[in-house]
């Protein structure tokens, strides 16, 4: 057993030494599924020589990984939870990077008449009134938190057989919605990139309440001295740079732009 542990430690030390400039960042599934990371990561490596290792999880888990010091930085989209994270001293600061928006998707024939809704709250109310199946992420992610806050605003306690909490990531939830031909809320990027749409179509979007801000938070080196805060700072500077602005604003899928850069420079 001793030899085993020694081998493990030596192997790990060697593995870490071979790519010294690497940084671990927890990101949300919605960001990853958009495909933007595949554009940004190679550029980051080319520009500042930094290897960003992504841990793709929901916002709830991303914040938990930051709290326990298992990642160097996080990129998430749930403002209230981010502020609580900062208030508890787990992160150094919060930097807004970019935004996209949430959309309502549902069956092509639209039994709840979402096409006629004017606000996101109205859209939810018509889904609840029609009693048509709605699939929720149900995983404490940023998308889930946004959906929950909209239900509160709509004055509806979502309960009953029509409300299904999938307890899964965005892709898996879209798969469930597609399989059940049900309504759901998705971020625009994941929706556009999703390969199993079936009979689902985009039914409602554009309400400012569906604004989806992504923010970057370096994990506090005061709390976790091992975090690579210098590299986290370098990454932040890059993410807020003109180069990043050009790449983020220029990223399109099926001709549609997905994200809008809004970091203060």
């Amino acid at each position, binding site marked *: 057993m001793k030899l085993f542990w020694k081998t493990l430690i030596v192997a*790990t030390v060697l593995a*870490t030494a071979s790519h010294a400039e690497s940084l*671990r960042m927890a990101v949300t599934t919605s960001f990853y599924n958009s495909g933007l990371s595949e554009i940004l990561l190679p550029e980051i490596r080319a520009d500042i020589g930094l290897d960003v*290792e992504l841990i*793709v999880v929901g916002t709830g888990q991303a914040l938990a990984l930051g709290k326990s010091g298992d990642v160097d930085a996080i990129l998430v989209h749930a403002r209230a939870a981010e502020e609580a994270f900062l208030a508890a001293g787990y992160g150094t600061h919060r930097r807004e990077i970019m935004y996209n928006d949430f959309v309502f998707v549902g069956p092509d024939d639209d039994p709840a008449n979402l096409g006629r809704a004017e606000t996101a709250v109205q859209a939810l109310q018509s889904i609840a009134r029609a009693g048509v199946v709605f699939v929720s992420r149900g995983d404490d992610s940023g998308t889930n938190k946004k959906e929950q806050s909209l239900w509160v605003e709509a004055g509806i306690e979502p309960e009953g057989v029509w409300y299904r909490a999938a307890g899964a990531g965005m892709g898996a939830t879209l798969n469930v919605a597609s399989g059940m031909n049900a309504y759901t809320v998705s971020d625009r990027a994941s929706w556009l990139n999703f*390969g199993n749409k079936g009979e689902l179509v985009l039914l409602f979007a554009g309400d400012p309440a569906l604004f989806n801000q992504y923010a970057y938070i370096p994990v506090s080196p005061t709390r976790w001295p*091992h975090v690579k805060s210098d590299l986290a700072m370098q990454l932040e500077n890059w993410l807020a740079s003109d180069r990043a602005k050009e790449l983020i604003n220029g990223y399109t899928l099926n001709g549609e732009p997905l994200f809008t850069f809004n970091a203060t420079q």
Partner: protein
Amino acid sequence: MDSIGQGFWDAWGLIISLDPDLYEIIFLSLQVTVSAVIIASVIGLPMGAWLAVNRFWSRRYVIAVLNALMGLPPVVVGLFVYMLLSRAGPLGGFGLLFSPSAMIIAQVIIITPLIASISHQTIRDLWAEYHDLLISMNATRTQRITALLWDGKRALLTATLAGFGRAIGEVGAIMIVGGNIEHATRVLTTAIALETGKGNFAFAMGLGLVLIVLAVIINLLIHIIGKTERASTW
């Protein structure tokens, strides 16, 4: 949705074009699982044999626990190893989380009870046969265990291969402790989960086919090396 055939075709295209990303995840899958199987066999096989030749009051309880642990949910193991290796956990100082080592540790915990349990069953039967002989030769406990493990080696291969089967197809634990990081901890099963999440069902199926073919090749190789399951031998 594209057809299953299309997915297999895409996967096949990646295989024959020697796609570096695909080979990287295949190699890592093998590296992690083979390491885990070797470590778990080194622990599990002698443990099973030891349990077979020794009689002590809590023996049946130990065996019951071992058998029950064969059904350990991988997600629970993953969570346990995560909490152990997390910076906030007791072994956090080693910084092993999100590395192949963490994935190996989780798999060892998952498959050791399986290997030990099958090994125990096999050795117990063999021990019944060899008991008088080994006792009359006045063999020490270590000699008995060694002799039994050696003579039962073909049957024990089944224990090892069962461990391999469970480990290579495992996703719940290694997703949590490995993090599915591209070029670092992404293996076949986590890649399949990822592609399923993206709705790329056909491609995920294609990767599943690669996984099965890989497992068949490994099993065949072991039979060839071990000279078992040939037409002329029983």
